[in-house]
């Protein structure tokens, strides 16, 4: 080995050792710095991707259009029926509001954000959004949509943030099941085989006997996620050796996220 190569190897080793010695805070700062540097490129890429997708989705065959037309007709009929049902519900809600003197209010302060990128790696489920420290975002803030919980912020740069999705195995959320006293921890799966990731509600009692369709909400235990955010619906329940486990269908379609809200506090 030549002297140049040995010197190069020594310098490489020293730099590698320096990076390996990074703690969580330094790593987070470094990561935020890199994301901040790349933010303009990531935003441009996101815009370009949306344009390509819109052009591609606009090119449909006649057969597809016919199918879509039929599906839309069916959907239209369904929506009319739902609309009628909702009018009844609206009337009832207004009646109850008046009766109980409820004020129309939203519990949380929500900061709207646009999804810039989706996960690029095989083993981690995360997205980046176009809000950061300059907008008041901090680490460990809940991210939601009108349908339910999306995840939490992990690394926050000046105007871009990394959001860990609920479908990631590392994102653990305390949850409770509608209509029961059952509480557990919702976790994603390590390997997602299908298009829609599944969530698992662990540490339930063996006697829980949850039924498909039962709704699961955040319980607020732990302090990161506010209580009452929809997480999903029970798909199946099984008894394990030490506890019960329910498989959930996520409330939010995590594979098609475009706009989200960051919960910055309570009103």
């Amino acid at each position, binding site marked *: 080995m030549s002297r140049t190569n040995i010197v190069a190897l020594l310098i490489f080793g020293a730099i590698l050792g320096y990076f390996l010695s990074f703690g969580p805070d330094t790593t987070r700062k470094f990561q935020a710095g890199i994301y901040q540097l790349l933010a303009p490129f990531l935003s441009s890429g996101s815009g370009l991707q949306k344009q390509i997708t819109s052009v591609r989705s606009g090119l449909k065959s006649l057969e597809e259009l016919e199918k879509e037309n039929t599906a839309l007709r069916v959907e239209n009929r369904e929506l009319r029926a739902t609309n009628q049902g909702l009018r009844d519900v609206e009337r009832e809600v207004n009646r109850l509001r008046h009766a109980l003197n409820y004020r129309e209010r939203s519990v949380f302060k929500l900061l709207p954000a646009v999804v810039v990128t989706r996960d*690029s*790696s095989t083993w981690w489920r995360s997205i980046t959004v176009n809000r950061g420290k300059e907008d008041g975002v901090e680490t460990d803030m809940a991210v939601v949509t009108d349908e339910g919980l999306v995840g939490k912020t992990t690394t926050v740069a000046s105007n871009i943030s990394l959001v860990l999705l609920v479908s990631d195995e590392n994102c653990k959320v305390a949850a409770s099941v509608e209509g029961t006293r059952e509480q557990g921890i919702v976790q994603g799966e390590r390997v997602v085989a299908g298009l829609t990731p599944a969530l698992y509600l662990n540490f339930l009692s063996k006697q829980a006997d949850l039924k498909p369709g039962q709704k699961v909400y955040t319980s607020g235990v732990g302090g990161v996620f506010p209580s009452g955010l929809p997480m999903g619906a029970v798909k199946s329940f099984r008894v394990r050796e030490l506890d019960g486990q329910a498989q959930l269908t996520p409330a939010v379609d995590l594979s098609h996220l475009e706009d989200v809200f960051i919960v910055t506090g309570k009103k």
Partner: protein
Amino acid sequence: MIFFVLLLVLILIGQIAEFFIPALPWLYNAHIYIVPVLVFYSAMALPFPLMLAVALYAGLLLDALTVQVIGTKVEISMGWSILLYAVLAGIMHGLRPLFVRGRWEIHCVLTGICTSVIILAQYLMITFRRGSLLFTPEVWWQIGGPGLIAMLMAPLVFWFLQWLGRVTGYSYLSERSIFE
């Protein structure tokens, strides 16, 4: 030198592009990785010190953009990807004489294998942290799938980079006589 800088720029573009390339649902959601192909080409086309520089740069980018910091826990510490890239690129660099003589087949296959090795190593590292070692068919496809795609992409990327090397005045082909 121009070629080396261009390679660094291409690696950056590749890393950003990976964010926008969707996973392949027909291949168990396998992702497409461009950067490893570029790094392993660099391992064969560049001298040892520059190869280390490319491994450092690509590993750093990969770690910075994918590493998860949750609370006070870092899942895979910064630097591990640098080490992985350097070791694998070092192996590829060892086969440089063959590459310089114009034999690409082994390197294309090795590029695919090394891409899968990176994903496998990541999987093993997170598995040791999280527990419960799972090796389902989906796991194997998500590890092997990107390798297969990299293997298919490699000849095209190598051809393009070789053309780029010639255009910018950098050609390792001048070293051919040393190895023959």
